[in-house]
């Protein structure tokens, strides 16, 4: 994990650790800082899990939506921890900016008085819980046992994926999926408008 501390920021060059010319510092030899950052990420993870649980369990749907917004922001933080800066910003912009607003609008349009008092969960809640825990144990066992081909430590500290690389990849090898996505988005747009439009031909 490196802090986005480049030479143009407030820190004077002399004091930092080994300062590679690319303006990035590797802090392997500063254990306390690593410890703080590690604790930060674990805290963020627990916050996300707690938010996810809340968003599933809240009776009032509006509170569930706010909890989900918290989870999404947490996940953006996790992306930062994984050096995916661009993706974190995209996540905040699209999910929290647009998708959650849409969800909250839908909640507001469809909520009727006294909805919160109805039964929010159907009868299969226990079965679903059991199946879920079963699945979780299986997944965790699988994660711990398989030997993941993790790269060596030095490569791991390679710099973050810059926007330029992403741009070239999007319009280089992945140009076909990129065009298909735009077609899908247009289709979704038209579909949403046609379905939700108040029919005026009365």
């Amino acid at each position, binding site marked *: 994990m490196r802090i986005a501390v480049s030479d143009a920021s407030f820190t004077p060059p002399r004091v930092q650790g080994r300062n590679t010319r690319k303006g990035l510092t590797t802090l392997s030899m500063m254990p306390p800082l690593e410890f703080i950052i590690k604790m930060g990420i674990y805290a963020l993870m627990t916050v996300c899990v707690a938010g996810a649980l809340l968003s599933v369990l809240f009776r009032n749907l509006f509170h569930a939506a706010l909890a989900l917004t918290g989870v999404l922001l947490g996940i953006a933080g996790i992306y930062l921890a994984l050096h995916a800066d661009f*993706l974190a910003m995209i996540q905040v912009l699209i999910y929290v900016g647009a998708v959650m607003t849409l969800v909250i609008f839908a909640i507001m349009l469809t909520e009727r008085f006294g909805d919160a008092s109805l039964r929010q969960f159907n009868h299969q809640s226990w079965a679903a819980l059991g199946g879920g825990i079963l699945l979780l144990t299986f997944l965790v066992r699988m994660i711990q046992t398989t030997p993941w081909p993790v790269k060596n430590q030095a490569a791991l500290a390679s710099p973050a994926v810059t926007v330029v690389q992403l741009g070239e990849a999007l319009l280089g090898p992945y140009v076909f999926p990129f065009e298909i996505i735009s077609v899908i988005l247009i289709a979704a747009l038209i*579909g949403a408008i046609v379905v939700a439009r108040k029919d005026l031909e009365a």
Partner: protein
Amino acid sequence: MIIPLEHFLIFAAVLFVIGLCGTLVRRNIVGILMSIELMLNAVNINLVAFSRSTSLDPVTGQIFAIFVVALAAAAVAVGLAIVIALYRVRKTICADEISLLKW
């Protein structure tokens, strides 16, 4: 990377299971849509974690994650449009009351 890959995968798995339970348990369609969002995000974390730690070309995972985000947005848009239209006609959005294919 000071956090080993396994921790990210476990975190994503937990999120995925919570989303799955939410989808199965919720009666309100908008609630179900929100839980599906949660599952998609869990998958995204896995993608980014793998691209960061294992794949030779770190860009592919993030590209895939961007596509997933775009698709999820489109899915929610259409899903909620259907929900609003449904609510206007049947004035209820409880999933188990909308079982008929025709109304």
